[in-house]
């Protein structure tokens, strides 16, 4: 007679297991590896593993002169390359107490905002695509191409520009720059309506983003989530308003704040920020004063010994640079407080007890750039 063996029955719903999301996963937008602890389909824990694209930029800065550091910062958050460059330039100019020409400030501010729009456009593309709307990807990239053309004509490259130098700009803007920028604003004002029709009001999109990954204002402050993600939770943290640099104090614009703090809120903040950026550009583009495109700088820049900190508002949040100089032509230490790295920290908190498909939506709404995390 056969004996009946009672094997313990493990139901898949009860047992926890780990899966690796990434480093080669399309929705992590790069080489980010998330070790996700799942129970069934419910996310219990997310552990990010960084370092797959670590290039040691901070260490490399220690052997480079301040002019050479600029081209390394391009490669951290490549989608807001100009803004990163701006941070280094402001740091050096602040330490040397150089007054840059007014023209440079105007041009830098306009280009920073163009860069922010381009970055948010690409985020919109990939956000739509992560949630299954492939059309978004094509439409967003099509419109981003116009900005890249403006960049290419003036600075000669599309993504990594190295256009700012301490004291000014590499070369003057192209004569077509103003006309092209105005044309783009006119064009994009029409196209952004398409964005809203296509995604913002879409029922599938709304159901997948509203109430998903809610971040309270306390969480945003405790985790240091800056930028559009933090502002969606009602934390007013816009460096452009709080510590104005460039000519942001001369332009009229609103800091976009929302209180819902969910994925949909983060989405809407970025959409509105694109409109605000266009507003800033429109106010400045016709008023660029004549003048030099660079201040007089010594060929070898030496910062006085001491510690310096400079922050700017990049497309993802607060970018801070901490620099120690001992009076030589290279810094002793450069530390970058990159927004993506800090924003990644809250991913675990937001996605607990959500479904795994929501993890993709939450990750996309934080707008992480992986080389910015690893540096």
């Amino acid at each position, binding site marked *: 007679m056969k004996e009946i063996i009672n094997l313990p029955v493990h139901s898949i719903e009860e047992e926890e297991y780990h899966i690796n999301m990434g480093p080669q996963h399309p929705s992590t937008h790069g080489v980010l590896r998330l070790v996700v602890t799942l129970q069934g389909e419910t996310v219990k824990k997310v552990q990010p593993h960084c370092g797959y694209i670590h290039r040691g930029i901070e260490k490399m800065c220690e052997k480079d002169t301040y002019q050479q550091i600029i081209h390394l910062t391009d490669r951290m958050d490549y989608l807001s390359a100009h803004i990163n460059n701006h941070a280094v330039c402001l740091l050096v100019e602040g330490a040397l107490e150089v007054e840059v020409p007014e023209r440079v400030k105007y041009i830098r501010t306009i280009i920073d905002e163009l860069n922010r729009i381009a970055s948010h456009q690409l985020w919109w593309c990939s956000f739509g695509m992560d949630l299954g709307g492939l059309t978004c990807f094509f439409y967003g990239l099509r419109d981003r191409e116009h900005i890249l053309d403006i960049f290419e004509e003036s600075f000669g490259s599309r993504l990594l520009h*190295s256009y700012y130098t301490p004291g000014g700009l590499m070369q003057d803007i192209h004569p077509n720059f103003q006309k092209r920028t105005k044309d783009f604003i006119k064009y994009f004002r029409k196209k952004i309506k398409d964005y809203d029709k296509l995604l913002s*009001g*879409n029922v599938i999109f709304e159901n997948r983003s509203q109430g998903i990954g809610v971040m309270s204002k306390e969480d945003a402050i405790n985790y240091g989530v800056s930028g559009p993600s933090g502002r969606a939770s009602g934390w007013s943290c816009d460096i452009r308003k709080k510590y104005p640099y460039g000519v942001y104090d001369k332009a009229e614009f609103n800091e976009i704040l929302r209180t819902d703090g969910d994925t949909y809120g983060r989405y809407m903040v970025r959409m509105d920020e694109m409109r605000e950026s266009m507003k800033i550009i429109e106010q400045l583009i016709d008023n660029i004063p004549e003048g030099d495109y660079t201040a007089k700088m010594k060929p070898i820049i030496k910062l006085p010994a001491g510690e310096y900190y400079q922050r700017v508002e990049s497309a993802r949040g607060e970018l801070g640079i901490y620099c120690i100089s001992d009076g030589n032509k290279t810094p002793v230490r450069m530390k970058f407080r990159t927004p993506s790295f800090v924003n990644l920290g809250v991913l675990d908190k937001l996605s607990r007890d959500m479904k795994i498909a929501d993890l993709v939506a939450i990750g996309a709404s934080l707008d992480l750039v992986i080389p910015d995390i690893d540096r």
Partner: protein
Amino acid sequence: MNSIYTYFADIFHGLKSLLIGMSVTGRYFFSPGQIVTQQYPENRKTLKMFDRFKGDLIMPHDANNQHRCTGCGICETNCPNGSIEVISDRIELPDGKKKRIIDKHIYHLGMCTFCSLCVKTCPSDALAWDQTFEHAVFDRSKLTKILNKPGSSIIKDIE
């Protein structure tokens, strides 16, 4: 009653939003004039890059095979990646003075990050950007280029 009402309201709201979205894609579907795709490589002959496009580092030579490089090595010092090697010679001028001239100006395209520091800092404007962009090769040794042409010399009055 109320729940039935919201049920149908949701369905209609959903359908409407989908139709609004479809109207956008449909509009592009029926207006091929708005297509922006370029037919590369078929359009290679007409494809032109912007004048400032940073494609490839060159040293412009004039009709007499003369360039402006003095061999001072400033570009080599300023390059953050060591992509430039300047090898210079010393020659004796007829009046007995020694002068440095360029022997080889070696440029490693594969190591270049297109930061443009070399072009900007060259004191005699000897370097410039070319607008080529098809850089793919089968062997990376082909990415190492010698920028001064064989037999070239320096334009007279450049110091």
